């Protein structure tokens, strides 16, 4: 297990290098540059000066090696091109924690309600409870989060005045309700559907019939045998979903004015802010890879058949 983990962690390095290289050349191949985002078209001399200041006048391979070397030597992606006075590290350090907190709250909501809905609809298969749960799940999958967030703002903030329209004051503030629910809805629906089919699948297994045959109460059959074994596919989905949710959502964060990192995934690309594009892409890649590793490790605990050696 230990050697397996070490090998997996070492393998992260070439994977990240591949991500770095692909991102670097893709973003430089995209037409347009980082300057000229104000209303006034900048004269050519200004653009030349800016390119010189940030080293964008050098050949591409030189920019590639300088950039890579900066990351290796100092762990530094350099200053943002669009936010003066902020470097990528500061941007990630100040905005990622907000997305993380919001993401964790959303994930807890998604897990609690998603698993409950999924198990209920599997157990009450083809009853009104099943149909209701799956109806909710389909709404959750098909309603985009920004639509949900916008509708919630209109209903709860503008019409009813129960909640503020947005902003951020930490986890224990009612400002988190709209963004967390909007963000949780889709993962909740996904988890509900996966849980339902997974539990249904397990309930048809021989060992469940055996457990029932030996007189085990249905509640215990469900908890000990069905749900536990159904967790394996759910863990796979939950891991990736988690990686997605904690890196924030452009739409939810924009609509509800949460100062998270999610918006930077989009705004950096449209602004051609190369260092921030690289920073957010590497961050996302790292979180996905780590979550995959975590899920693989979790298998050991939920599935006795899985052994790494």
């Amino acid at each position, binding site marked *: 297990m230990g050697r397996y983990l070490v090998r997996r962690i070492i393998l992260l390095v070439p994977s990240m290098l591949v991500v770095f290289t692909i991102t670097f050349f893709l973003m430089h191949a995209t037409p347009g540059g980082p300057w000229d985002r104000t209303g006034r078209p900048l004269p050519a001399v200004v653009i030349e000066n800016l390119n010189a200041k940030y080293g964008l006048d050098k050949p591409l391979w030189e920019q590639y090696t300088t950039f890579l070397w900066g990351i290796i030597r100092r762990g530094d992606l350099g200053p943002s091109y669009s936010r*003066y006075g902020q470097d990528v590290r500061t941007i990630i350090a100040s905005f990622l924690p907000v997305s993380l907190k919001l993401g964790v709250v959303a994930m807890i909501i998604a897990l609690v309600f998603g698993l409950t809905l999924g198990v209920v609809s599997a157990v009450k298969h083809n009853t009104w409870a099943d149909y209701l749960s799956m109806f909710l799940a389909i709404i959750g999958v098909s309603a985009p989060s920004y639509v949900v967030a916008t509708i919630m703002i209109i209903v709860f903030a*503008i019409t009813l005045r129960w909640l503020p329209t947005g902003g*951020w004051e930490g986890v224990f503030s009612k400002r988190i309700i709209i963004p967390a629910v909007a963000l949780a809805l889709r993962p909740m629906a996904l988890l509900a559907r996966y849980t339902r089919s997974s539990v249904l699948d397990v309930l048809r297994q021989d060992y469940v019939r055996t457990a029932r045959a030996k007189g085990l109460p249905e509640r215990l059959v469900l908890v000990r045998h069905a749900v536990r074994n159904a967790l394996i596919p759910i863990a796979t989905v939950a891991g990736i979903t988690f990686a997605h949710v904690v890196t924030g959502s452009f739409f939810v964060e924009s609509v509800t004015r949460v100062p998270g990192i999610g918006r930077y995934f989009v705004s950096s690309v449209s602004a051609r802010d190369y260092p921030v594009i690289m920073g957010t892409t590497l961050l996302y890649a790292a979180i996905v890879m780590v979550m995959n590793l975590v899920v693989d490790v979790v298998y050991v605990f939920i599935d006795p058949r899985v052994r790494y050696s």
Partner: protein
Amino acid sequence: MSRRVTILTITLLVLALLAGCAQAPPTATPRPPTAAPKPTDTPPPPPPTDTPVPEPKVFRYAAVEPDSLDPSKGGSGFADFQNLYEALVDTHSKDGEIKPLAAESFEQSADGLTWTFKLREGLKWSDGQPVVAEDYRYAWLRQLDPAEASYAPDMFYAIKNAKAFNQGEITDRNQVGIQAPDERTLIVTLEKPAPFWIQHAGNTDYFPVRKDIIEQYGDQWMEAGNHVGNGPYMLAEWQHDQKLVFVKNPHYEGPWKDTRHIDRIEITVVQDSQAQGLPLYEAEEIDVATVPSTELDRVQADSVLGEQWRLSDIAGATLLLFDTKNPPTDDLLVRQAMALAIDRETLAYQVFKGAYPPTTSFSPPSLSSYEPTSFLGYDPAKARDLLAEAGYPNGEGFPVLDFTYWSIWRGPLSAQTLQAMWKENLNIDVTLNPLEPQAMRDYRISRETEPYNIYYALQWADIADPSTWHNSQLDPDQNVRHTRYDNPEYVQLIRDALNETDFAKRKEMYQQAEAMVNQEVPMLTLLQEAIVVVVKPYLKNYDEVTTTIGQLTRVAQPPGLDIVR
């Protein structure tokens, strides 16, 4: 047993997660000490009744996160950073007069080459240090320093040796025509008599900055706590991506000292001030908001909002540019036909619901070059005749043109409407080529060498002077707009007008030049830039403190924004 362990583990995990959330370090998003979790960001509750302290007046609105508050980055589109600085002169007043601001007097030498500014006595920065002429000189030279890569060095090019210094031809900054012989005197020497130059001195690019602060904090100097300005207000708080707070600058001694009725300016950061401002306004969280054209119908019909909206013009317009050397748009008749086939009324009132008025000349009406009589308005019959005369009767044989435009804002709707109008009125086809803004920039720059036919652009007047519209866009020496229009008569006219010191004559020359552009159509304007806002009724003097160039809100500008409930 195992079940209990599982439940225990899950409980612990959940608790750990929650604890992790709760105990996260406060550095990322420091909570303002005053911010109580209230549904609206209202000012603190009034003190008990026996102490009649007036409630602080808070002006609240929404804006996108500024990239910078540095004048050398033009505030990066964040116009309202100008409440933090004070220029030498006020060039944005409603009556169009140039008024002294930080300078108590300014005069031009008889030959028109030298401007002498005398600073007011007792002016201070927000940290209490005196404002000296050298602060302005330092800031302007910083704008020109090529290593700074500032956004608007060309705004200084009228000054002697400024262009050479900015382009690295000379390195001695003392040769640039900006001198500060003593603490209160600033002398500017120009290359040529340039009557328009004083207009620049009131712009945000000409704000002063503090050398010692910039050297001490480097690129962090704009952060709250570091920033020092000389304006009526100062930066109190800047929580990135959340909000900015300006408060009265206690050391401010300038002429707008007594028109600061507002105590505190709170700016909520949004991603899109057009789309997100209105919900905040309707939830009573801000006092003024812009209205997107898509919401205009609803706002006008609303019983409350219908009383609170207003439209104000901005000196700017959306433009079409033609390549005047590439067939078929090299043919004057073709350009005129395409211009005459545009129904601006439909575009303005059907497509954009009246949020942007149709243009009536090449220049915006606020510039003295405005000359509507020569303008080619909507005349489809004449357009067809001209196209036939050019050799394309009923559009036959006319090549399919590529029409490039911004894929954001009003670009797509404008382009689709024009495509339909040209098809209907002239029976010609254009292919739509939308580009996102950063790609559009590359497209614009590469037009210097690449042929094209038509593209769409947006232009604002940098200063209230026709040169910003004619010389900056159509002089063959400018390197921004490439229409390749080189009518020698026109070029001579705008170059002479630029340096003409007799204002009446200058106006006449520009109007003559404008008539040529209106008739020869190297460029045409479509819709006037404008902004529709909703303003709370308790906000007094809002219209008086906003200026037409970019709709800047200068809160302390006389008579001063006020809140009267």
